[in-house]
Structures are given as C-alpha cells and as structure tokens.
C-alpha cells in the first residue's frame, strides 16, 4: 500500500475554477488555511480560456489572471494541481478525512522559468486540449500562455522519453523520477466547486459534429476569437478558409429531452451573442445568423446586449435545426423549421457553431462515504435549502459553490462562491467556539 503523507488544513476546496478560487480567497482572507485541489495543470477553470465576458465584453483573462495570481501567492492557500480527491469520510462534526492523489508533472515547478526551450526541443506533436483540438502542441509544454502555475508539464502518455527536453532545460527542473504522491488530509470543512461539463455534440449525430470539420463547438469558436487564438485569424478548420457566413445553433444539448438534458444552459444565448458581436469586429464583412428557440436574456444588461447584437446586424432566426449536411466545398446546409412562419427551410453557411449546453459533473457524488452526498435528478449537487441557504448540501459541513449545483453564469458563480465561503466560515466559527 502506498505511503500517505498526513496534512492538516482548516478547509478543503475542490476545484480551482472561478468559484473554487473565489471561495478559497474568501476563506484565506478570513485567516483560515485552505488546501485548493485542482485536477488540471492550471488554476482558472473554464473561465481563463474565454475571450471576453458578457454583457460587458470585458476581457476574461484580465479578470481571471489577477485572481489566480492572488490565489497562487496567498500565504493561507496551498494549491495542489494535477490532483484528485479520491475519497472523503466525515469522522465527526468538524473532522473530514480526505484521500488525495497528486500526479507527477515531471517538472519541478519552483525551478521552471517558463522559457519554453523544452517545448522547442520536444519532437512530439499531439492535439492541444487547451485549444480544443484545433491545433497541435508538444509533449513537453506550457498549457497556455496565462496558465498558473506558468510552468512546463510533460504529457507522459505521448512522450517518447527521448530526453531532448531535459538536455534543453537550463535549470534542470525536468525530472522523470517524479511519482504519484498520496496524502491524507484532515480538514474541518469542505467546499465543492467541481464545475460542469460541456455537452458533447457527438451525441447529436444529425448535426454532423466530428464528421463535418466546419461544424465546431462554441468553445472552439471561443478559442478562435481569444487573444491567444490558435490561428492568425478566424478560419474554418476544414480548409483554412476565412468564413463569411457563420451560423449559431442555440440550445445544442440543452432543453432537449432526447439527449437527457431538459434544462436551459442559462449561458448559451448570451455567449453566442457575445461571440457574434466579436466576430463582427474580427470579420466586418461576415454575416452572422443565430438560430434560436427562445432568446432568454434574463440577467442584468442582457436584454440591452441582445438589442445591441441586433443593432450591429446579427441575424436572429427563430428556427429549430433538424439536420446539417455538408456540400463538396465544405459549406453546410442547415435544414430547419422556421417557427415564425411554420415552414421547413434550408440555408447555406460556411461554418456552423454549436452553442453547447451545460451538463453536470457528477464526480463529487462518488467520493463521499456511503454516497452520503445527494445529487439532484440531473446529477448536479443537491442543495438542501435552495432558497434559505443555497450552499448547504446533504452533509453538514460540506458546501457547494458555482456550477457544481446547476448551470449559471460567471457573476452568479462568484456570488455562489461567496455564499459557500460564508457558510463554511460560519461552520468553522461554530465549532471553534464550542
């Protein structure tokens, strides 16, 4: 059996996206020692990969990077990246024991200067998951330019162990002798900020994703319009053409019982309008059409944002897409029901963006003793008192933050993280005073 190092913190926060990060900062600023566990190579979750945010069109990285920098440098926060919490047992009130495994990065982060010489030397090329497969990356790589920690990592599954990276590294921080480390954590409270999964459009074969290369997801388009984009401009992945007729298919995998996801994603209307406006800036001659069932512009400034998109010339069609087919030249034919006119129509576009919905990440449900953490029917973490104390879960002392409890946008995730950290602080204070 592997040797486990015993560690103690006041709070365990699982997930270092915007919600987990915010909750960790709130706890740490109050003086509590926090262990923040993240399975990925960087802090920042999905938000750090976005171009801009709606409805203000503020730069997402400009909001996220100071936050992740504060998390990484906070004296009361310890960050474990490449790590997973495999099991949590509640021994008594105020006493949680968590088993954590920390995978090797094969790079000593404290020695890495992010010079990228290892990346240059590495002969391997594989699809870059941080650019959603649009382009390649090396097996020795820095995940993305604003990653935190900004240090190289070795993709050991694709590495040929040629040693070129080691030879190139001026600080000798690459170390293939690193192994998985195991920890036993004792914490007084737990915050779950495990986020959400994007809907996989391969589940709707009639939309042709995966088969037709000019059908992409909204996250792929998000990368194409981000400052750290994969290409020099917006291009079709099918043939490198600059598109000039782009379609958005809203509610892909949302409000759709046939794929087991009957709920609204709460974000796909607005992020599609955001992308449409950014595309009109990047490609002034392009026609952008948004096919929708209903526009749900429910938040502060959302309706104005919708009107702004219309005013800029984005074409909104109330239509439900039946099927997408590809022409020989890579263009796409959208067959749709025009809901306003009640007739079936067809339209040709250069490129189609599937505005994918939000699905639960049910992983947290499996880690608690005896499945004591309750999930809702859609596998989001159940909120014990939705209206009174939305951060409370079925386990006293375990709180939920952000989209782990259901779809929501970034401001709501941050608010939810504030609620979770306040509840956690209240819980810690209650037991401190006993």
């Amino acid at each position, binding site marked *: 059996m592997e040797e486990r190092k015993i560690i103690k913190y006041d709070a365990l926060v699982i997930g270092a996206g915007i919600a987990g990060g915010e909750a960790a900062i709130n706890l740490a600023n109050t003086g509590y020692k926090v262990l923040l566990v993240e399975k990925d190579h960087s802090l920042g979750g999905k938000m750090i990969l976005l171009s801009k945010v709606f409805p203000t069109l503020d730069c997402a990285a400009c909001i996220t990077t100071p936050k992740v920098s504060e998390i990484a440098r906070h004296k009361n926060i310890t960050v474990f990246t490449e790590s997973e919490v495999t099991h949590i047992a509640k021994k008594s009130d105020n006493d949680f024991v968590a088993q954590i495994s920390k995978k090797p990065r094969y790079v000593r982060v404290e020695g890495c200067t992010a010079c990228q010489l290892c990346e240059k030397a590495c*002969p*391997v*090329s*594989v*699809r870059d998951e941080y650019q959603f497969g*649009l*382009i*390649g990356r090396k*097996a020795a790589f820095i995940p993305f330019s604003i990653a935190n920690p900004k240090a190289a990592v070795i993709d050991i*599954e*694709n*590495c*040929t*162990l*040629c*040693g070129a*990276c*080691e*030879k190139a*590294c001026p600080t*000798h921080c*690459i*170390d*293939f*002798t690193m192994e998985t480390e195991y920890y036993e954590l004792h914490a007084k409270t737990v915050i779950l900020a495990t986020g959400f999964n994007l809907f996989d459009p391969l589940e709707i074969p009639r939309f042709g994703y995966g088969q037709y*290369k000019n059908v992409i997801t909204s996250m792929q388009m998000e990368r194409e319009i981000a400052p750290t984009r*994969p*290409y*020099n401009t917006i*291009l*079709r*992945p*099918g*043939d*490198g*053409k*600059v598109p000039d007729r782009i379609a958005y298919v809203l509610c892909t995998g949302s409000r759709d019982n046939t794929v087991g996801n009957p709920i609204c994603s709460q974000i796909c209307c607005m992020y599609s309008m955001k992308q449409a406006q950014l595309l009109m800036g990047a490609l002034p*001659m392009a026609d952008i059409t948004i096919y929708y069932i209903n526009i749900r512009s429910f938040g502060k400034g959302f309706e104005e944002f919708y009107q702004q998109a219309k005013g800029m010339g984005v074409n909104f069609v109330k239509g439900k897409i039946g099927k997408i087919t590809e022409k020989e030249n*890579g263009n796409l034919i959208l067959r749709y029901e025009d809901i306003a006119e009640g007739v079936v129509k067809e339209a040709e576009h250069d490129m189609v963006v599937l505005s994918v919905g939000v699905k639960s990440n049910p992983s947290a449900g499996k880690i608690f003793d005896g499945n004591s953490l309750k999930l809702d029917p859609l596998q989001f973490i159940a909120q014990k008192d939705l209206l009174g104390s939305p951060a409370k879960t079925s386990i006293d002392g375990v709180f939920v933050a952000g989209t782990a409890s259901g779809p929501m946008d970034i401001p709501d995730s941050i608010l939810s993280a504030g609620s979770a950290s306040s509840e956690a602080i209240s819980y810690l204070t209650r037991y401190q005073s006993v």
Partner: protein
Amino acid sequence: MEIEIGKTAKYLRDKQGVPDSAKEQLKEFNRIKKAIVDALKEQEMTIPQLADKLQMSKPDVTYHLLTLVKYGVVAVGEIDDMDEYFSYKLVK
C-alpha cells in the same frame, strides 16, 4: 541508486519503456511535417493547393500546417484576391 540530473528520461525509459502509440504518432508527425516542408520549399501555397499536391484531406493539412505555424516552421503569407485563403511559406 542515484539518478543523474538531466538523464532521468533514460531512467523512466528503462523502467517502463515507451508506448508504441507514442512512437507511431511521432513517426506520423515527422512524415507529414517533411511532406509539407518539402512542398513549401518550391513555392507558397494555400491549404487547398497543398492538400491537392500532397493528396491529403484538407482538414488534416489545415491542422498540421497551422500547427507548424505555431511551432515557427511555417509563416502566414498574403490572403488571396477573394479574401478567402491565406498562402503559407517556410520560415527562412
């Protein structure tokens, strides 16, 4: 046994070997990289022109060519008169 700094890849290679899939992937990338570089030695080309010359699918050429742009092997040239396709050239 003390493992020398800078030679730890050999340690892991001896310990667990290298997966065949990783070796195959490297071989395939090198083959495609060489084909693209050789083709661009002759002249600047667009992606459809390269796909035609190399008898490869356009999506595969797009992916590999733009990856080579990222790695600094290939540079983006001018866009055509129809504002549709960029040409690509080798970095000198």
